[in-house]
């Protein structure tokens, strides 16, 4: 965990006081809606279909137990008893009253969380691998660098009014769990032949109505040059990015239109002018940030302790363990993913009671630390293996031990037309119906790893372009229809899915997905060929023939 200091606390308290004043002036009529709207958006407050929504950033997906417990409190007191974890490591409260927002924000600020820069054309919450500092795959803790970026980008005056919003993701592991290739800037931390730490820098990735996979413009940027290089990118984007058309304003359009090579030249030229300036990160500055991260005092343990071995005799526990428990870098410890996708429930939602239970369990078994992944699941990154049976029993009792992580019913879905003012079609009920088709988890396990992503409109908050099966809701003559893509992926081999065929109706989607899965089961080379690999080997045509013949 990163320890915030008095400066951070004072800053948030001032910000809450400022917002309280703004809300008061709006309610009194001193501010018009046109004047107030940009102010509320700067604090993460949206107006949705039937209520205000408060979006709270969870920097690099890391929470402590006190923060999660406070989110439960906000859900219980100011909302309807639940919160929604998003694909950008945020949480959203869907029913907040404007007149109560300052109180809710004050409660959150007391534990160091806020909604600043979760909306608007600024640098948004910097996201990273939810397994940071726990996975043996990584070369460094990526959150160090995300925190440096967070401090740099928070209220940065030059980048408060960018052409459009700007999203940065960082990974330090070979396997990319942060989807860096579909962000405006993706940073892959690695070491060069000399063992020095640096970043591969990708720009121009993104989804939405014009999706692109990011282009690499630098193989190795020395880590201490991170801020000056990011500033050079931001300046080139700020200067040349389009402001005349909201749909052409993201950096991906600029990179696409002038080409990655030209964009890179412009960045390098800008960087040459500023790289030795104030943004050069000294070893002392990096060490200061690094020292503010508090890590668990890991004890000397061995893998597969007797408590775990004994518990594995229970088939339910063993199934959960195989699905939701992952290798930790320290012997005797594990990473635990908590599925927020119980079959038939809205993906990514957690009740206030569940949040409190997870906070308690994190304190008892997980060094008081909780992570949020872009897959809309939670994670306890540091659990002693001997504690896994007790943890599982408590999670299971709370409905939080569904062993479906990375399976066909671990579906990523945006809020869709059930909440969102931008959506054309529903996403959550589609996910629920598909999940029910695969409620038999033995069947889902037989299918293996398969990511379904659903978006209720072209803005793609459900990342449908990079779903193994992507589902995009559209509206035709007042009816909901859904386009299906196959073969997308968000990892280190990121690619966009290929359209399967004509859009189908709301009622047809679950059956069509089931047919796609059945086709895969028939066509796969064997149980070890994943869905995504079968699609890569055969293309979408065999699926199209089979699926549309049936509909």
């Amino acid at each position, binding site marked *: 965990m990163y320890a915030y200091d008095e400066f951070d606390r004072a800053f948030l308290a001032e910000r809450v006081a400022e917002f309280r004043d703004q809300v008061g002036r709006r309610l009194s009529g001193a501010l018009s809606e046109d004047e107030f709207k940009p102010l509320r958006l700067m604090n993460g407050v949206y107006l*949705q279909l039937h209520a205000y929504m408060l979006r709270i950033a969870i920097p690099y997906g890391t929470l402590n137990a006190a923060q999660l417990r406070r989110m439960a409190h906000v859900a219980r007191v100011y909302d309807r008893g639940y919160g929604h974890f998003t694909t950008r490591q945020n949480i959203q409260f869907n029913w907040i009253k404007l007149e109560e927002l300052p109180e809710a924000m004050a409660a959150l600020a007391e534990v160091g969380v806020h909604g600043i820069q979760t909306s608007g054309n600024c640098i948004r919450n910097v996201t990273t691998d939810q397994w940071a500092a726990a996975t043996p795959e990584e070369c460094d803790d990526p959150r160090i660098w995300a925190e440096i970026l967070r401090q740099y980008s928070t209220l940065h005056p030059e980048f408060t009014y960018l052409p459009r919003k700007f999203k940065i993701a960082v990974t330090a592991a070979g396997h990319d769990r942060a989807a860096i290739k579909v962000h405006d800037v993706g940073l892959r931390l690695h070491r060069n032949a000399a063992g020095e730490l640096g970043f591969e820098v990708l720009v121009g990735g993104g989804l939405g109505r014009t999706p692109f996979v990011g282009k690499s413009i630098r193989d190795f940027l020395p880590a201490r040059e991170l801020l000056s290089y990011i500033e050079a990118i931001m300046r080139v984007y700020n200067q040349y990015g389009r402001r005349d058309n909201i749909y052409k304003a993201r950096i991906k359009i600029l990179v696409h239109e002038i080409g990655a090579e030209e964009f890179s030249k412009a960045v390098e030229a800008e960087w040459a002018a500023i790289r030795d300036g104030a943004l050069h990160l000294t070893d002392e500055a990096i060490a200061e940030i690094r020292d503010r991260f508090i890590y668990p005092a890991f004890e000397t343990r061995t893998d597969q302790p007797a408590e775990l071995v004994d518990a594995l005799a229970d088939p339910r526990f063993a199934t959960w363990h195989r699905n939701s428990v992952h290798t930790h870098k320290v012997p005797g410890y594990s990473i635990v993913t908590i599925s927020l996708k119980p079959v038939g429930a809205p993906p990514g939602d957690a009740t206030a009671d569940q949040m409190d239970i997870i906070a308690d369990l994190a304190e008892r078994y997980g060094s008081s630390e909780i992570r949020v992944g872009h897959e809309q699941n939670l994670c306890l990154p540091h659990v002693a293996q001997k504690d896994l049976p007790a943890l599982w029993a408590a999670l299971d009792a709370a409905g939080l031990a569904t062993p479906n992580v990375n399976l066909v019913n671990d579906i990523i879905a945006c809020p869709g037309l059930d909440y969102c003012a931008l959506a054309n079609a529903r996403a*959550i009920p589609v996910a629920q119906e598909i999940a029910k088709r695969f409620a038999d988890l033995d069947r889902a396990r037989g299918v293996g790893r398969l990511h379904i992503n659903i978006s209720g409109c072209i803005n793609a908050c459900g990342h449908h372009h990079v779903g193994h099966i992507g589902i995009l809701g559209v509206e035709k003559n007042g009816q909901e229809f859904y386009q299906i893509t196959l073969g997308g992926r968000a990892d280190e081999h990121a690619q966009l899915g290929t359209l399967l065929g004509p859009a189908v109706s709301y009622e047809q989607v679950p059956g069509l997905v089931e047919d796609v899965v059945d086709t895969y089961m028939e066509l796969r080379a064997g149980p070890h060929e994943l869905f995504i690999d079968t699609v890569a080997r055969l293309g979408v045509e065999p699926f199209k023939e089979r699926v549309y013949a049936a509909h």
Partner: protein
Amino acid sequence: MAAPQQQKLKVNGPVAVTANRLTDGAVVWRTKAGGWSVELADAAVVTTADDALALLAEAGQRDLDAVGPYVAPVIVDADGALAPGNLRERIRVAGPTFELPH
């Protein structure tokens, strides 16, 4: 698709003016008396673009009670009862189409 507030107004049947209440975002409907009600049954219903624009203009004169007014389709049944005219409005009136977490 653009939000209803951003679309060119087309009136092909009965419509009403709707918005969100300032204090809590609740869905409200413009009434014949020139106020706002959370009950669709209280909504002023018009059937021409000119009347809808007039209702909208009047609703937009004061933004202290409700925000983001726009024209929404409604259905009037044989008894004169009102219902939302499309899925978006049905969801605004009745809430999400699935059981909320509890």
